[in-house]
């Protein structure tokens, strides 16, 4: 049983309310930070903890905070990115829904560290009911003196506002999020200037994921050094994984990044194995945009080592034989799933969510979707697979924001690892309409990767 820092109290009855949360030791970190630490000390603790951004990119949070420009007379902002819209990811929703005060607490401490007197939670439009939960929690916190003017008599003022997005995936990208928050069209900005220098309303801004900000609470409570001891290597602390797909126990799990992928899928403590005794075909371990891995490469790295649930191990082997930790959206596919159809679903999503600003992403995603649709519905040609490969290659790395990469990687990985399945769809369109390709020879190490 791994150590739990975030969800430990998530199931205490009534934990959503301030009274219960406080009774269970809530807001201790605020007291500790505001009363006994300077903002720089808080930042230092977070740096020491080795906490990496939980939104997907895994950038060290303390480092991000220390980049924040602090010119005189200019307000600074903290923005909480709750626009959790990566398919397969629902950890932030879970956290906000069940233990909203943890986020509020984390926001207060982080705002104190960054000197933000106005902090925004930019929340995904579809999470309408969670807005109410958060606003309730914010109101309770304010009534009890944790927000507002002169918090705990320290002279620190803070207001937290919840802003609903309109449902665009791209608004989860931090600069597009800021545009949207300012009331503009949610197109990503070109960097530089970086948000840390010119972000929200022309002011230095830090944008952090919900889980990242919630993790600040245990870091302050137990200390950065202590936090850094949990986990392995640079993957410190605990990580929320939202597991879904063909597993017995879908849900959000807090892991301490020392367990193996195999254990995560099969142990009863976590996913509880695959239903109906089916075999594992593939898995996307970090949200829809990270590369899909076939079972053989998922459970063992190309070097034959056990693959672990942490940043380093998951990305072992690069994109050729590895994948990424991403946002922790763990999607499991059993032997009856069709990779082409699955890729089409993702391609459709990315086409729809492209903002339409730069050509490769705007036009490329639409084209990829159309090709995949043809292949899936038995109208594909063998050359379509090469065309698909060509298009994704030209999108990757050539767009303004990472959405282009996010759209290209799933297609690339699907072709890289499952090219024979694509070919089978093209060669036997009628069969492909009626049954699935199955597992084929994915037990064979590196069969398809070598080909491409």
């Amino acid at each position, binding site marked *: 049983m791994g150590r739990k820092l975030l969800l430990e109290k998530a199931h205490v009855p009534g934990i959503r309310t301030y009274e219960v949360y406080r009774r269970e030791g809530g807001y201790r970190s605020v007291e500790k930070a505001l009363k006994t630490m300077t903002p720089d000390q808080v930042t230092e603790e977070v740096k020491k903890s080795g906490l990496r951004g939980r939104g997907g990119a895994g950038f060290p949070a303390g480092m991000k905070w220390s980049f924040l420009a602090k010119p005189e007379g200019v307000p600074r902002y903290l923005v909480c990115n709750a626009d959790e819209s990566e398919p397969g990811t629902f950890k932030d929703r879970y956290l906000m829904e069940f233990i909203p005060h943890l986020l509020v607490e984390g926001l207060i401490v982080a705002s104190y560290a960054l000197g933000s007197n106005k902090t925004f939670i930019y929340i995904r439009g579809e999470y309408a009911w969670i807005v109410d939960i958060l606003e309730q929690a914010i109101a309770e916190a304010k009534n009890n003196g944790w927000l507002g003017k002169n918090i705990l008599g320290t002279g620190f003022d803070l207001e937290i506002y919840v802003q609903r997005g309109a449902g665009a995936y791209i608004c989860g990208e931090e600069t597009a999020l800021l545009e949207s928050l300012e009331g503009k069209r949610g197109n990503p900005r070109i960097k530089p200037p970086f948000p840390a220098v010119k972000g929200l309303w022309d002011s230095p801004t830090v944008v952090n994921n919900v889980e990242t900000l919630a993790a600040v609470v245990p870091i302050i409570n137990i200390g950065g050094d202590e936090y850094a001891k949990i986990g392995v290597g640079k993957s410190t602390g605990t990580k929320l994984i939202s597991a879904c797909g063909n597993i017995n126990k879908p849900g959000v799990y807090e892991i301490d990044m020392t367990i193996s992928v195999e254990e995560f899928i099969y142990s009863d403590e976590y996913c509880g194995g695959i239903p109906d005794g089916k075999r594992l075909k593939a898995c996307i371990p970090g949200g829809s945009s990270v590369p899909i891995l076939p079972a053989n490469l998922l459970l063992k790295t190309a070097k034959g080592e056990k693959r672990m649930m942490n940043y380093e191990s998951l990305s072992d082997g690069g994109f050729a034989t590895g994948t990424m930790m991403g946002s922790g959206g763990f999607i499991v596919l059993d032997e009856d799933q069709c990779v082409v159809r699955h890729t089409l679903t993702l391609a459709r999503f990315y086409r729809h969510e492209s903002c339409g600003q730069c*050509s490769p992403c705007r036009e490329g995603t639409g084209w990829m979707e159309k090709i995949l649709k043809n292949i899936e519905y038995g109208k594909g040609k063998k050359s379509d697979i090469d*065309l698909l490969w060509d298009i994704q290659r030209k999108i990757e790395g050539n767009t303004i924001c990472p959405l282009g990469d996010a759209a290209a990687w799933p297609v690339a990985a699907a072709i890289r690892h499952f090219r024979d399945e694509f070919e089978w769809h093209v060669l036997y369109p009628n069969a492909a309409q009626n049954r699935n390709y199955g597992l084929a020879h994915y037990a064979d190490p590196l069969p398809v990767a070598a080909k491409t």
Partner: protein
Amino acid sequence: MSTIYIDNKQYEVKAGKNLLEACLGLGIDLPYFCWHPALGSVGACRQCAVKVFKDENDTHGRLVMSCMESIRDGLHLSVSDKTAKAFRSQVIEWLMTNHPHDCPVCDEGGSCHLQDMTVMTGHDYRRYHYKKRTYTNQYLGPFIHHEMNRCIQCYRCVRYYHEYAGGKDLNVFAAHNHVYFGRERDGILESPFSGNLVEVCPTGVFTDKTLREHYTRKWDLTTAPSVCNHCSVGCNTIAGERYGQLRCITNRYNSQVNGYFLCDRGRFGYEFVNSANRITQPLIRNRTVEAVDEAVLMDHLRALLTNHTLIGIGSPRASMESNIALMQLVGKENFYQGISDNAVFVEKRIVEVMQSGVIKTASLHDIQQSDAIVILGEDLWNTAPVMALAVRQGVMKTAAHQALQNRAIAEWHDAAVKELVQQEKGFLANCTVSSSPLDEISSSVMHKAPEDLARLGFAIAQRLNMVLPVVQLNDDMSTPAAVIAAALQKAKRPVIISGAGYYNEALIRAAFDIAAACKATAEEVHLAYVMPECNSMGLAMMQASGFENAVLRTSRVNNVTAIVLENDLYRNVPAQIADVFFNNCQHCIVLDSLHNATTQHADVLIPAASFAEADGTLVNYEGRAQRFYQVFVPANKNMQESWKWLMKMQPVQTGSAVERSYHPEEVLAMGEQLLPRLSGITAVAPPRNFRVNGQPLPRAPHRYSGRTAMLSNLTVSEPKPKQDYDSPFTFTMEGYSGMPPSPLIPFFWSPGWNSNQAVNKYQEEPGGSLKNEHAGKLLFEYKQDATPVYFKDIPEAFMVRHEKWLLLPQYEVFGSEELSAYSKGISELSPSPYAALSQLDADPLSLVNGSLITVKIFEQVYELPVRINAAIPKGVMLMPAGLAGMPVMAWNSWVQIISIRL
């Protein structure tokens, strides 16, 4: 300068630019869409990708967008790299997935940037086999045709319309591969600069609707360099003709004047040339057959021109040549400006100030580069729209310069600059009578009566130079005066703009005083006075007296033959005065291109060529003489330049038998003789015998089609091409096929560059000056050591009169200018008459918007709907100037409201 290596070849390039600019400046073809020299880089289309290498040993390289990459000394890049080429071709393929293959029926075909770029990248095979995306098009008004299916989503339209020109009603909608560029709903585009969308759009989404009504491919047009004749700015244009009909006006780049953009009045106001209202035949009135030919006309004129006192009435919209020819014919002392004395008084002051040479005149380029602008009493947006656009750029650029200080971001990096600038603006004080779209970008806005504005001006000057007399101002004006003075004190390159719009001479003096006072602190001060019409400055420089003096003269002298040159006097002086004039004159010869109220009074009416059928010179507001060239020879040979007619009358008048034809430069030389202050005007353009490699310059591109067949319905033998004896041009495609020098560019074309983007090839560097640019001849000379003589005569403050209103003109972009109003689209957009009042004046009378008031002006009664505008100062009434059925030159008189219908 920096040294860079492109495909291992060494080049010296200007630092501070991006790689795309560098490549284009070096003449290396690199495709692009979203970048535009006037709009900067945003890196959206990804079309201009090149490979950049770490050093000369790096063979792998990195794909970058050249428009987003700064020049660094020693940089190695490759344009011809295989990966880069493949990527560029891939981008075109992406863009073409949804682009319809309708080039044959597309208005843009043959002058399409997308076509050029597609060919340039070498993409020729289609791998996309799916349905194309389609859109619903919108009605965008009489000027712009919308065809969204052709869109390649480069965002240039929105960036231009929204950010560059400040329009609000065109935007981007929806997302992913279904983004839509248009209005929120169908409707007329609000910006008076919408026509530039036609040139900004790299493909056929926004096309010229007026051209569409008589469509011709670019390569089938006979074109000539022209100068816009719809306001005093003098934007350079290219006018195109086919089959004797003027087809379109496009922008002719000039780094000092209009740059890349025109206003809609200039672009779409050309259609009066094709109007059915044109005068086509010489007419001698009160004959059984009025229409006569040239010989009969000249015969008839002999009696009128001899034994009569000749009075010549010049025109602010006729060319210098025509005005000079008239002066030559009637004699200097008999030549009058065809405008009212009030206007002459103001314009004379302007010429005097400019002539003193104390302050430099402000070109549009100077305005764009300025860091503080004060507009004193001129409704720039409506009287000189493109200057207003330049003011906007000045304000934006200053903000950008401030934001970029101490930052490692280049100026061309539009997206980053916009991010840094946010709502910041450079300093602009817009001090006018009523509200203007420039108000929203102004740091200081003031709406006062002209006298008060002049006082404000003097007060600002006094704050800059304490020696000047103190002006007592109310609190609501003294604070802004201090703010404006403080901003000017800090400014390095201030520009002061005023004009003749309100016919208030004190404004002219005040503006001069401010500019002169700025000289102490600024590096460079510029001054601009907007003039009423395209050649007002040229006419004013001829220093003749106003029309009222001519009337006086005719009342004293008998036997007068008046020659009215291209002037509808009923637009320039009150009708009563014009009537008296025509009563006094025994004979009246009128030369004009269109029938109007004045031509009704002509005993002899002579058809004049319009700008498109004429050679001539116009002097713009800064005293810049610019030559416009005849585009085509009208089939009707009666339509000749006024100056040609007038020069033909000369031997008739003197009785000399020698008939000879004159050329524009000879007429200008006569002008120099007559008026020393015009000296230098003959240098306006290369002489008519100018040749390149011994060859004349063709007006038609080498791909001009159908020449031998065009007239085959009339005759099967191909007629001899028309000869041009007045300019270095031919009317055909024969002649020198390379790039002509700058004032003689009839069209922009370069191999592989069929669209207007070919202008890159004509420039020293993208967005810079044209190669060997000759941007007209400035007639005012700046004198370095001239000491300013301040005007110290300060007008009294404006006093509101009981139940009386000071009548002032409200100019309208569409409608106030005479010739453009004859064009269909312009007349559609021109407002109906109204009277605008302050809220403070409307309330006591219980007036609301639309209430009808009756006012009496010069014995004439007008019933007009009321427009209430809170910006108008109390005691002032505005009426649209130049509209049919509106009072003429009644400005600055006091009017009473006779009755009210609510």
